[in-house]
């Protein structure tokens, strides 16, 4: 009996692993930057080459940093969703204009609308490397302490915003509420 059960068991375990593997997207690489502070950088803004922007400018309760470029087709696809987020939900979005050309990028914003508070102009892609960018569009969620809380690789949609980002934000808020309650009770 055991002669059949053991191989059958091994087979089932293998099938289990392979089955789970079927539903995993190998192009999604987990970012080691989650839970870490935003990388430091100094760059010029997209609109004004003489104005500098650094990681200290990324201020807000929760902000998004969206990696985009005019050569990126999927960025065009998600653009309307970004405009929706800023206009309807007042989400502050900073852009990381990645390996792009200043003039085309400005034209793009003129034509499709500008959802960004400001844009980091990263024509060499060096800041992109510090952010672990490997394919635009990517969107980072950053909290008020400047910690990266979530990263989306792919297209932002209202659904993705609701399911991934709002869920994450609510988790963080309830965790910090629980923490402050605990602190209050200790005092």
């Amino acid at each position, binding site marked *: 009996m055991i002669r059949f059960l053991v191989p059958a068991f091994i087979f089932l375990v293998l099938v289990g692993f392979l089955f789970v593997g079927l539903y995993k997207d190998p192009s999604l*690489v*987990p970012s*080691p930057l989650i839970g870490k502070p935003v990388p430091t950088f100094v760059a010029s803004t997209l609109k004004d080459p003489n104005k500098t922007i650094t990681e200290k400018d990324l201020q807000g309760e929760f902000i998004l940093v969206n990696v985009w470029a005019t050569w990126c087709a999927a960025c065009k696809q998600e653009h309307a969703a970004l405009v929706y987020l800023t206009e309807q939900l007042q989400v502050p979005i900073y852009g990381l204009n990645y*390996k792009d050309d200043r003039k085309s990028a400005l034209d793009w914003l003129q034509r499709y609308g500008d959802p960004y508070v400001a844009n980091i102009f990263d024509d060499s892609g*060096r800041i992109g490397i510090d*952010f672990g960018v*490997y*394919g635009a569009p990517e969107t980072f969620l950053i909290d008020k302490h400047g910690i990266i809380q979530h990263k989306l690789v792919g297209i932002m949609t209202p659904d993705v915003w609701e399911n991934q980002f709002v869920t994450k934000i609510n988790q963080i808020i309830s965790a910090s509420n629980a923490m402050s309650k605990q602190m209050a009770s200790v005092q």
Partner: protein
Amino acid sequence: MIKNFLPLFICLFYLSVANAGFITVAPEYEDRYEKILSQLRCLVCQNQTVAESPAGLADDFRLEVKEMLERGASDEEILTFMSDRYGDFVLYKPPVKTRTYLLWVGPFVFLIGGVLLVVTLVKKRAQAEPITELSDQDKQRLKSLLDEDNK
């Protein structure tokens, strides 16, 4: 004859040019540069190393590695720089950690398990008593089978 292969040669020529990239390092760094690049995975075309990938991101990686080498960074520092930003996945040779124990130890476990299995099976077979005498029943069966053939 050579005419038929001309397009192929042209393709191969451009391919080699494309792969060579436009980044060149000083001769004293060349060996280390090549070694490091062949240990990094290109995240755009995941089954290629940065050394062989024509993707734009791989170019950026090459430039970064080159500049770090020139700044005097060690091989270790450069690989850590990459894995800090892109995770262990960027390294073709994953580091030994609790999470990767199975990956490193697994093949040896299977190898030892297989050897043990073969050894026990062979031993068992060797220990089994060889059949020297046939039982009456077997003799009868043998006889009837032989008779059948002789018919």
